[in-house]
């Protein structure tokens, strides 16, 4: 007899009938009725009306029935919160049942009922279950803490469950340990700086021991958790790697990938000349290759990750090109990924084989795949110079097939080859021109037009060819129009006598008949250039082009590092940081690879610096640099009607740049001497702290006042209140000679170990050089820790202000400040103190401000400014009132400087 019979009732009075059955005295009938209810629920019928009747069946001695009722509760409790309370008693009772299966079932289910009133009752049973004698119950309770935290984080903290959970990491049972680790990791994800996991060599050791004993899933939890740890030095790093490598032989692909993640990350700390480093590299290749025998979905995840690994450490798989050869029956998503990796691995040594394969693929039928294969041939030509000729001839062969999309794709890549190797392959232009008519894709048309324009002097009928495109100018896409405009101007500059008419025609099409601003702008610029100074025009339009780079689609190094830390996860599949696709993760620390300890690692530092610069550049000048230059003086030929609005618009834009809206930059205290030369055998250190583009920097000035040369500088911090730690080594690359001074800027992270200091902003620093180790302490302005996304929503501000008890409020006076409220607000914003609202009451401005610290603590402020009164009053409210004093000091420093 199967369960399918429960789905079959479709009579009209169904709910009514079920109600009667649920209230039947006969146990068997009751159970049948509940099954029917669950069956209805399964097919999506709303059976919430039966809530009280089903809950009545909860107290049963039948396990199957109990499970069904629990299932029902999980589904409908949220829609019937008041009635759900009826179930609490049974839950609490079941949590004390002699059978551990029932106890676990009850605590598991209760955690899934996301109703506040129920959660309150969950605490006591949960506390007991966390200490239950049966590991099955404890492992279930451990997960329940994470569930509860998701519903009510404060409650979990207040009840001390986090500490109990931490204790479970030392539990004697491996499954309990694994679930506790999983739960803590999950909780820590929403509290990035909470240091919940408190990983240290002792706890790491415990985890590594548990790794050998728990289930495959538990192993993944532990490995993923290990990947968040930063070993103290290369020796610790190596010893962890040694204990993780056996996991590479696990049958479960997910275990293997998580192990690869840990190894890829910790390898970063190993010196490259270490024998073990080489051994490890060799050990990584075979398991990565084996992942390609897994199920297709897992192959896909593996390939996306291999793509990252190949970019980060090409040496691991450089001899494994053949395993990425495409099989006929591979799913398309596997084929495309394999192709991508093949190109990355292509080198002079294997290019012949790669090309033979690519040629094979280019004659397949799957359009996307074929296109990508053709493109790949072009990329090979650009990447491996020795192969360029063979690639070009392969592409010509493919053009001969006359398969439309193959031809178009080939022309697009040939354009790039021309750019990479100028004056080498132009003999093929004739063949390309034969296919002009068959090009119907904008990219291919644009590429062909570019080729004609670029080599106009060698193509006899270039003017005819370009003219033929001009006929349908307005039907072309912007890409083609722009290219056509440029090509004809190039042609004109090369053969001015016979093409005057053509250039007039295209300029007027572009400037007068088009409503595309980009096209118009370019048209005007050419027009003006040509009419005022043809020589300059030649220099601009026919300028030598920069070479195109070999690897076109490499992932930017900082992103690559972050993605390596996320191996196996969705981020590694999307090749995007989690903050790009996970809601509410914006403030979360980006994961980074650990820096090498000991001697300076220039490579990482330079990567770091470039990453600091790039976002700024992207935002500030990424727009259209040509704009300003082109319109500095309006060209005389420009129609007057256009002149005014455009000019005005730009003026407005420029106004923004220096206007009131812009923050003024963060306050940086002046440098002070931290370590006098007397105390440090001749080394004097002064410095200050700054926050630039979201990165905290310690700016140091090292002066050698001794007689001998100083070398081998390194720096370390003691644990401190906000987990400040150097994000890289101290960069003193050249020895510091006597009487020499060097300025160093050291980026800091806030993920170091935390210990409360007194005063709170105190930092104890150790600096080492070839002579000795020196210690000093300094204080940083807490404003360095104010993060950029510290602007609170108005509503949230109001609620939070009310929510924080009045005892936590502190008031300060700032005297002798002569700014008006607006200027004050601007100045403060430069230091990430954001004004959320302003209210004026009886000539007194009240500014409401919010600040967020790097560890997630919010500080709310109310600043009272009275016109003509140089004394401000400030009230600060914060859940951690001990920071208030430091925050006040910052206000004072920022406003007065």
């Amino acid at each position, binding site marked *: 007899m199967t369960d399918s019979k429960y789905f079959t009732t479709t009579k009209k009075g169904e709910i009514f009938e079920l109600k009667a059955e649920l209230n039947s005295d006969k146990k068997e009938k009751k159970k049948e009725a509940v099954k029917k209810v669950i069956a209805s629920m399964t097919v999506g019928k709303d059976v919430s009306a039966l809530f009280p009747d089903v809950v009545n069946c909860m107290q049963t001695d039948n*396990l199957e029935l109990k499970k069904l009722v629990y299932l029902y509760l999980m589904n409908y409790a949220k829609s019937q919160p008041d009635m759900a309370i009826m179930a609490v008693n049974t839950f609490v009772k079941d949590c004390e049942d002699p059978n551990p299966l029932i106890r676990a079932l009850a605590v598991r289910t209760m955690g899934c009922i996301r109703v506040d009133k129920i959660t309150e009752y969950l605490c006591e049973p949960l506390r007991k279950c966390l200490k239950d004698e049966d590991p099955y119950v404890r492992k279930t309770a451990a997960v329940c803490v994470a569930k509860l935290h998701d519903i009510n984080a404060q409650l979990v903290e207040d009840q001390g469950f986090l500490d109990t959970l931490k204790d479970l990491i030392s539990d004697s049972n491996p499954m309990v340990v694994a679930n506790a680790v999983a739960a803590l990791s999950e909780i820590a994800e929403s509290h990035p700086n909470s240091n919940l996991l408190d990983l240290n060599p002792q706890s790491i050791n415990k985890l590594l021991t548990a790794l050998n004993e728990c289930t495959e899933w538990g192993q993944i939890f532990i490995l993923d958790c290990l990947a968040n740890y930063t070993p103290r030095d290369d020796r610790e790093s190596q010893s962890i790697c040694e204990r993780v490598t056996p996991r590479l032989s696990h049958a479960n692909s997910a275990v293997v990938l998580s192990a690869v993640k840990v190894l890829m990350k910790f390898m970063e700390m190993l010196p490259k000349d270490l024998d073990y480093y080489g051994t490890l590299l060799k050990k990584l290749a075979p398991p990565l290759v084996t992942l390609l025998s897994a199920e297709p979905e897992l192959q896909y995840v593996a390939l996306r990750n291999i793509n990252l690994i190949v970019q980060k450490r090409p040496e691991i798989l450089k001899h494994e090109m053949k395993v990425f050869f495409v099989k006929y029956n591979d799913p398309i*998503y596997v084929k495309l990924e394999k192709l991508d990796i093949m190109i990355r691995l292509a080198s002079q040594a294997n290019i012949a084989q790669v090309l033979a394969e690519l040629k*094979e693929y280019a004659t397949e039928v799957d359009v996307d795949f074929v296109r990508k294969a053709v493109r790949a041939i072009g990329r090979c030509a650009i990447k491996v110079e020795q192969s360029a000729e063979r690639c070009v001839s392969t592409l010509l062969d493919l053009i001969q097939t006359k398969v439309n999309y193959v031809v178009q794709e080939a022309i697009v890549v040939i354009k790039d080859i021309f750019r990479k190797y100028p004056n080498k392959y132009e003999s093929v232009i004739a063949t390309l021109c034969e296919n002009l008519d068959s090009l119907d894709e904008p990219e291919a048309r644009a590429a062909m037009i570019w080729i004609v324009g670029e080599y106009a002097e060698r193509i006899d009928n270039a003017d005819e060819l370009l003219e033929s495109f001009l006929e349908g100018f307005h039907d072309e896409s912007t890409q083609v129009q722009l290219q056509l405009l440029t090509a004809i101007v190039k042609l004109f500059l090369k053969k001015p006598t016979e093409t005057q008419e053509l250039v007039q025609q295209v300029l007027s099409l572009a400037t007068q008949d088009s409503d595309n601003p980009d096209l118009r702008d370019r048209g005007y610029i050419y027009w003006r250039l040509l009419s005022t100074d043809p020589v300059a025009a030649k220099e601009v339009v026919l300028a030598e082009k920069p070479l195109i780079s070999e690897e076109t689609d490499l992932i930017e190094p900082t992103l690559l590092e972050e993605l390596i830390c996320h191996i196996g996860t969705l981020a590694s599949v999307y090749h995007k940081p989690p903050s790009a696709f996970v809601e509410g993760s914006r403030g979360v620390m980006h994961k980074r690879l650990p820096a090498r300890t000991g001697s300076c690692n220039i490579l990482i530092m330079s990567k770091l610096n470039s990453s600091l610069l790039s976002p700024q550049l992207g935002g500030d000048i990424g727009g259209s640099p040509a704009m300003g230059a082109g319109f500095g003086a309006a060209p005389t030929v420009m129609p007057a009607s256009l002149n005014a609005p455009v000019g005005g618009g730009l003026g407005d834009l420029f106004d923004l740049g220096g206007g009131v809206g812009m923050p003024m930059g963060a306050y940086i205290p002046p440098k002070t001497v931290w370590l006098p030369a007397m105390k440090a055998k001749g080394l004097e250190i002064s410095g200050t702290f700054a926050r630039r583009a979201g990165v905290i920097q310690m700016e140091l000035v090292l002066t050698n006042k001794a007689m001998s040369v100083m070398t081998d500088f390194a720096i370390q911090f003691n644990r401190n209140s906000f987990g400040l730690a150097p994000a890289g080594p101290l960069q003193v690359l050249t020895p510091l000679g006597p009487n020499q001074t060097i300025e160093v800027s050291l980026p800091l992270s806030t993920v170091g170990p935390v210990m409360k200091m007194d005063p709170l902003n105190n930092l104890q620093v150790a600096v080492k050089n070839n002579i000795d180790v020196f210690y000093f302490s300094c204080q940083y302005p807490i404003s360095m820790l104010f993060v950029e996304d510290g602007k609170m929503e108005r509503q949230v501000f109001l609620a939070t202000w009310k929510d924080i008890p009045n005892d936590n409020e502190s008031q300060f006076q700032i005297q002798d400040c002569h700014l008006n409220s607006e200027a004050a607000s601007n100045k403060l914003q430069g230091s990430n103190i954001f004004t959320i609202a302003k209210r004026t009451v009886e000539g007194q401005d009240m500014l409401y401000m919010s600040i967020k610290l790097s560890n997630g603590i919010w500080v709310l402020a109310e600043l009272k400014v009275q016109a003509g009164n140089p004394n401000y009053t400030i009230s600060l409210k914060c859940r951690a009132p001990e920071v208030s004093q430091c925050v006040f000091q910052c206000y004072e420093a920022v406003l007065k400087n």
Partner: protein
Amino acid sequence: MSASAIFILDLKGKVLISRNYMGNMDMNKVDHFMPIMMRMEEDADSSPLVTHGSAHFLWIKHRNLYLVAMTKKNANAALVYSFLYKMVEVFKEYFKELEEESIRDNFVTVYELMDEVMDFGFPQTTDSKILQEYITQQGHKLDVGAPRPPATVTNAVSWRSEGIKYRKNEVFMDVIESVNLLVSATGSVLRSEIVGSIKLKVVLSGMPELRLGLNDKVLFEITGREKSKTVELEDVKFHQCVRLSRFENDRTISFIPPDGESELMSYRLNTTVSRTHTHTRVHTSPLLHVNLLSSVCQVKPLIWIESVIEKFSHSRVEIKVKARSQFKSRSTANNVAIMVPVPSDVDSPKFKTSTGSCKYLPEKSAVQWNIKSFPGGKEYMMRAHFGLPSVESTELEGRRPITVNFEIPYFTVSGIQVRYLKIIEKSGYEALPWVRYITQSGDYQLRTN
């Protein structure tokens, strides 16, 4: 960490059953899944990971079902896919086959299993033998012996329960090697690899400790017995039960086996580069088998195919295929099936073969040439002739490869041998291990012109 919810959908996208594990996402979001899939299908696109807004769907397909995990976090994707496949395995062991009908017929058990195998997105126990000890398919009354969670669930040995008893203690081992081959249209071997698997059927009482000895090259090097014939395994993967650290240290394969059938290990050897190997023949026999004959030879593709496929547009297709067995004549390949692709619009097939029989399979657009028994060192021919319609089909057809299926019993192409299997149980019983070797085709493809 992984999944907020898991759904089982039918082919039309209707939810058959689901489980909301984290309660942090709207369960109705799954309604977007199938429309996205259909749009992708229209574009001839496909991805095991699809997105709708903040929801990410990771899916696998099994028969007429989609198993879909939904998440909004940066989930461990490898874990999710691996878990979905594990779920399929569990359901199959419970219901024989996982399909729409078996879910409807057993929905109560399915719910129970879904509750047990994952909690709040964290996979828990997924060993179906252990699950069967406490999730059974009949109802229970608490007072009359409701099941308790077996200690095994949380134990370090989470795959074998205590107290198993058999009258006769035996272990059956199957060493199965699959040959993956990829040959270019010009006849050069692009890739050739062996994926081996050692499967166990364990009929042993108590908690036996087993140790498996193979002629593993690395092991022999460690122990200084380099003269013997050995096999260099490029990569090895083990069942959860094998102590990985021990293997890493001294290459010892030691374990407490799961009861019944399981895959103990798998291994991979790349044979693209010519290498030497041993040719082994072993009869099913109590373990003391001897490496009867070992002659050194190259790993040539076991069955080599040469083909000429000539297409005369609007008139006919002529196919000539030559198959040669490149292993010792004392071995025999059984059930050889050679699939030769033909255009989809051919008609009136005619065949001639020197051995075996041919069949035209219109649904696969292929000719299947079957040879029941193909001894080593032989060569056979097949000719096929098809008509082509005078109107040419406009559809472009890919050049599909020739594929070959076969199996060769009593033979491992790598030369791997089980040297011993030591079984120690505290009650001191004697147990017999049995070993069987077989080589078969894996992904065996030869591209055509």
